[in-house]
């Protein structure tokens, strides 16, 4: 009892020095801690964004500008887009962009359509063998692709798809991750909406297409974005499947550019920028979905 009654008298004494500081806090931080935090953020900014900016700067420097001058000149003295044109002289860069677009678009469509269909069936339809099917999809998540790539290459060769874009797309046409993400999304939907559709005599396909699918648009966007990004960025598998330089995707083509053709770092830098800028633009305009994909993919998948 004494301690309880004592509290009101001791608290005000301890509180006064704290009150003015608390007023100055931003996001629950003292000005000193805040300054340290911003300093650390600035250092991390240099480490994380610096390399991109330096590469961008190199790609814009003219032929007479010394790119090995130190301290480095971040703003080009004579900015030019010439290096971007020279990428096109060294490699068929438009063709590579088109190839990458075909691969990434195809992977996005198949992952969304087939991933959603499979995810829906696993989440909502009861059938014998469902657990087995689930295990198969889970296995594709657990087995690293690198472990089976030699055998997958033999399969692709058997199908006559070596050196084709179809051969690049097919193994990742529907990933286990896409299916699991869709499965989780459908599982989280309340049953009641679909039950109403069942009473109305809707078929499974109608329920899926017109009732369930429109409710999981957010996850579908996440699957679309990640499928596109993975396919656009993928390097090892296209490097294995594609043999003729004309068929290369952009990542393989850019590596080829740096390895075989030119020792001019300005052109290589321009090539890397061509490959990364579309994705960075997409990311900065649709960040929400990128972050959501990490959360759902890592935590639930």
């Amino acid at each position: 009892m004494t301690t309880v009654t004592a509290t009101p008298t001791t608290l005000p004494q301890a509180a006064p020095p704290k009150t003015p500081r608390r007023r100055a806090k931003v996001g629950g931080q003292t000005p000193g801690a805040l300054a340290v935090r911003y300093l650390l953020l600035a250092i991390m900014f240099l480490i994380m964004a610096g390399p991109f900016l330096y590469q961008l700067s190199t790609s814009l420097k003219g032929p007479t500008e010394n790119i090995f001058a130190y301290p480095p000149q971040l703003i080009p003295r004579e900015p030019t887009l010439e290096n971007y044109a020279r990428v096109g002289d060294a490699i068929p860069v438009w063709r590579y962009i088109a190839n990458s677009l075909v691969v990434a678009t195809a992977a996005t469509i198949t992952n969304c359509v087939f991933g959603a269909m499979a995810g829906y069936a696993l989440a909502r339809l009861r059938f014998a063998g469902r657990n087995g099917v689930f295990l198969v999809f889970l296995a594709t998540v657990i087995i690293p692709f690198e472990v089976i790539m030699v055998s997958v290459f033999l399969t692709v060769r058997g199908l006559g798809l070596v050196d084709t874009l179809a051969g690049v797309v097919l193994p990742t046409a529907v990933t286990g991750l896409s299916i699991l993400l869709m499965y989780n999304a459908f599982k989280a939907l309340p049953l009641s909406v679909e039950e109403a559709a069942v009473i109305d005599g809707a078929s499974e396909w109608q329920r899926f297409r017109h009732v369930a699918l429109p409710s999981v648009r957010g996850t579908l966007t996440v699957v679309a974005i990640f499928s596109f990004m993975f396919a656009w960025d993928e390097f090892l598998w296209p490097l294995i499947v594609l043999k003729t330089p004309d068929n290369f995707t952009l990542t393989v083509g850019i590596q080829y550019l740096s390895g075989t053709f030119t020792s001019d770092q300005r052109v290589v830098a321009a090539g890397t920028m061509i490959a990364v800028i579309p994705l960075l633009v997409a990311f900065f305009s649709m960040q929400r979905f990128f972050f959501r994909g990490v959360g759902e993919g890592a935590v639930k998948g």
Partner: protein
Amino acid sequence: MRSRRWFTPWLFVAPALVIAVVFYILPFVNTGILSFTDARALGGGTFTGLENYARLASDPQFWLATRNTILYAIVVVPLLVVLPLLLAILVQPQIPGMGFFRSVFYSPVVASMVVVGLIWAWLLRSDGLVNYIFQTLRIISEPLPFLTDATLLLFSSMFVTVWKGLGYYMVVYLAALANVPRELHEAAEVDGAGAVRRFMSVTVPTLRSTMLLVGILSTIAAFKVFAEVFVLSNGTAGPGGDARTLVFTIRDVGLGLGGEVGYASAMSLVLFVLTIGFSLAYVKLNREEQAA
């Protein structure tokens, strides 16, 4: 809900199932079978028992690749468990500009490893920016051959892996941090616990399962390392290929000119066992630490 026709659910799963079986399950089974044969890309395939595995045991290239890959995981995994957590704590408070910083730190995740590799290959040259900065700060007196010395190349690749992975795991941790009750921190603060103490006794225990997840994900990723080493060394894996990793070697042996599919399959299975083994060991280590 029960379907009116038994095969309707199968129609839903069929496309995905066909892809999964043809391009994952069967190749996995095939990898196991081929590893006991002398199959080559252009034919052959006589059963040779454990010959491939015996050959692995005395293959210096394979041991070098295995050593490099394990070293890779041992260095990279702890860094990817701890650094993104510190980064997540740094970007957690909702203060002005934080959305921007989070996005910038995540942006390497969006880029292809080829792009990231080429960017760092330019920075890590002996006449590159990193050597200039290190020399200016007097950390080193002579430029370091980050890309042309096999050991340094391997460590440079590890650095690139960590740099590219930071943002991804940062977001994973941010999601988990949002679930740590504020009261825990406040209670510890009232008890007079400093920032480090609060980190060790409040944040770490509540994030244990997330740290475990990040550890497993980064272990699996570390054993698959290929593009970093390939791009930084322009496809050579350093002088004499001494920075080769397992995936690098599997590609060379199984898909190169020799096309030793059977032998490469044996290596692939070793890679699989190592990946699963290290992931499980990591889980076990974590459990024991938690129990202690």
